[in-house]
């Protein structure tokens, strides 16, 4: 099957000229990308509904408008590669095989979620599937993923690691230390910096005085390129190329994905600080509609095919939501234990201390 044509938006920062690459994706792969993006969006829409019904515990963080960045990049990794998402990279862990029902259970604080209700949203990992959940402290996963890449090298595995960071997160010391360490060590680490115009309410212009995040590449002596983050194929192609460069010792690699956060920071955020025109401008660039147009106009698929994908996802999500809704909350006492590998009587000790057994002899 001949690969379909697709306009590549990636540009080499230091050359500054557009170029058109041949997408290397098969029809099945293109449909995969569609599936993952759509699954991400529809799963988040379910979460939004659940949130409105007060069934989500805590905040809900949407990736609306950014699905192409998360999905396209994660899809470019090999099976043994490992990534670490940001809160808005649900699509990335979905590509790596995270189950919607697990995500739902996490957001609903259920016992059946992958952390048993101990941590929230996508704060969980599965090394067998190749993803490591983030901590909240922005930037912290950059050194960690550098370390994962370092371990890969020490173990003689030719793996690549991928860490996501926001236009806000790049201001952290951890980002700097981690990326610089990776650069000195030439570690196979891809950093995808999501330029989505805001960090909470803060516009990127208050985050940095330089124009593009990719401007930082030269200061670390590493390759850095900008990609249209709403173009899933472009993101895929650039990440794939970055992974090859990393695998052959040319890493780390900094990718800047230009995109837009189409909702507030979290569902509670009224989003008032975002100019209407900016929203309108980016709404027109919605990564999923755009990809649908491409898929149908380039005859990769018909409207019917797409509808089928949507139906399949909807059915799967019905089931996953049911599962999550019917799941129970964790047993209170499961708050204890698992702090160390060897509990060493800690749980029992804590329970005794709650009863003050030593003081009162009972």
């Amino acid at each position, binding site marked *: 099957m001949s690969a379909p044509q697709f306009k590549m938006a990636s540009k080499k920062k230091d050359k500054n000229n557009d170029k058109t690459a041949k997408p290397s994706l098969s029809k099945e792969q293109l449909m995969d990308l569609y599936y993952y993006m759509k699954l991400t969006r529809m799963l988040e829409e379910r979460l939004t509904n659940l949130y409105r019904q007060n069934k989500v515990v805590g905040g809900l963080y949407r990736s609306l408008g950014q699905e192409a960045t998360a999905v396209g990049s994660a899809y470019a990794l090999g099976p043994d590669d490992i990534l670490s998402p940001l809160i808005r990279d649900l699509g990335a862990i979905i590509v790596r095989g995270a189950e919607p029902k697990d995500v739902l259970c996490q957001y609903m*604080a259920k016992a059946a979620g992958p952390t048993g209700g101990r941590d*929230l949203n996508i704060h969980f990992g599965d090394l067998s599937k190749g993803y490591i959940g983030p901590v909240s402290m922005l930037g912290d996963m950059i050194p960690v993923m550098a370390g994962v890449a370092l371990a890969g090298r020490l173990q003689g595995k030719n793996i690549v690691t991928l860490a996501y960071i926001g236009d*806000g997160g790049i201001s952290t010391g951890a980002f700097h230390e981690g990326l610089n360490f990776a650069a000195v060590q030439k570690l196979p680490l891809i950093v995808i910096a999501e330029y989505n115009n805001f960090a909470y*309410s803060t516009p990127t212009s208050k985050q940095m005085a330089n124009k593009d995040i990719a401007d930082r590449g030269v200061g670390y002596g590493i390759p850095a390129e900008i990609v249209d983050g709403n173009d899933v194929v472009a993101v895929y192609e650039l990440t794939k190329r970055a992974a090859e460069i990393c695998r052959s010792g040319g890493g780390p690699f900094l990718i800047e994905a230009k995109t837009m956060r189409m909702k507030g920071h979290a569902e509670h955020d009224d989003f008032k600080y975002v100019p209407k025109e900016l929203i309108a401008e980016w709404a027109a660039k919605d990564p999923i509609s755009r990809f649908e147009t491409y898929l149908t106009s380039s005859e990769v698929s018909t409207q019917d095919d797409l509808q089928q994908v949507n139906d399949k996802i909807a059915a799967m999500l019905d089931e996953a939501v049911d599962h999550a809704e019917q799941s129970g909350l964790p047993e*209170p006492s499961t708050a204890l234990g698992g702090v160390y590998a060897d509990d060493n009587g800690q749980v029992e000790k804590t329970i005794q201390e709650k009863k003050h057994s030593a003081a009162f002899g009972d």
Partner: protein
Amino acid sequence: MAEVTYLEAIRQGIFEEMEKDERVFVIGEDVGIYGGAFKVTEGLIDKFGAKRVIDTPISEAAIVGASVGAAIMGMRPIAEMQFIDFISCGFDQLTNVAAKMRYRWGQGVPMVLRGPCGGGVRGGPFHSQNPEMYFVHTAGLKVVEPSSAYDAKGLIKAAIRDPDPVLFFEHKFLYRRIKEELPADDYIVPIGKAAVKREGRDISLFTYGAMVYKAMDAAMKLADEGIDIEVIDLRTLSPLDEPAILESAQKTNKVIILHEDTRTGGIAGEIAAILGEKAFEYLDGPIIRITAPDTPVPYSPPLEEFFLPQVEDIVTAARKLAAY
């Protein structure tokens, strides 16, 4: 007079100090047009402008470091951590730069660092922490945590006027849950003074922050049983109001220390040590600690409720201690 929430009390305190003293300014993430993640700084930018209400990049070390720099030049910065958990990223600046400067070469650092702490809102391991002890253990810093709107306003003002770095912990569970009328006139609550929330004969219960309410609930229940609890709200954690602690313990001869912070290395230890050395002869029973267990703060409601000390825990322990 309208009633004012704990959150609004803090906002008012900052507002009034900024009005009165042009050296005071606010710095942090999203503190400007957005008014802060919890809206504590809402409206400040409209009144005082972007020069004095500074939105920063996500750079806690820079927020603290720049505050130190401005403070030693005679300004009075109020730095916000969006959640107090992120103080971990400014830890080095606080403990090594801010805390030690006066001792080292006599240069004071009059700054306030404030932010929402504490659990009960399903924030999970990184949005619910109580990191006060890291700073209580650091000489050169002061640490306060008000439990009422009155104290919140009085302590934030005292903190802003203080010549040394003050960490102001705001318990986010209290932000909009409590209200009271506040005096129309300017007032402060002095740093370093505990408050007797309830006088009692039988047991001294030392606590602070959101736990004050659980202590008061427990005291009410216990009163029905004839057990008379003295509830002391520490309010300032560093420097501790040692005279108040000793006085109460010498009166009741029995002590419970209650905190939401995790157990090992929590402030209960410090208080136990003070009592063990300085009130040994007065103690008629074991010193009881009621604290969160030594785990991160879990997220799911049943887990977090299990993690947090509860009224029942206090009541049960107090009964046993009273009978001891």
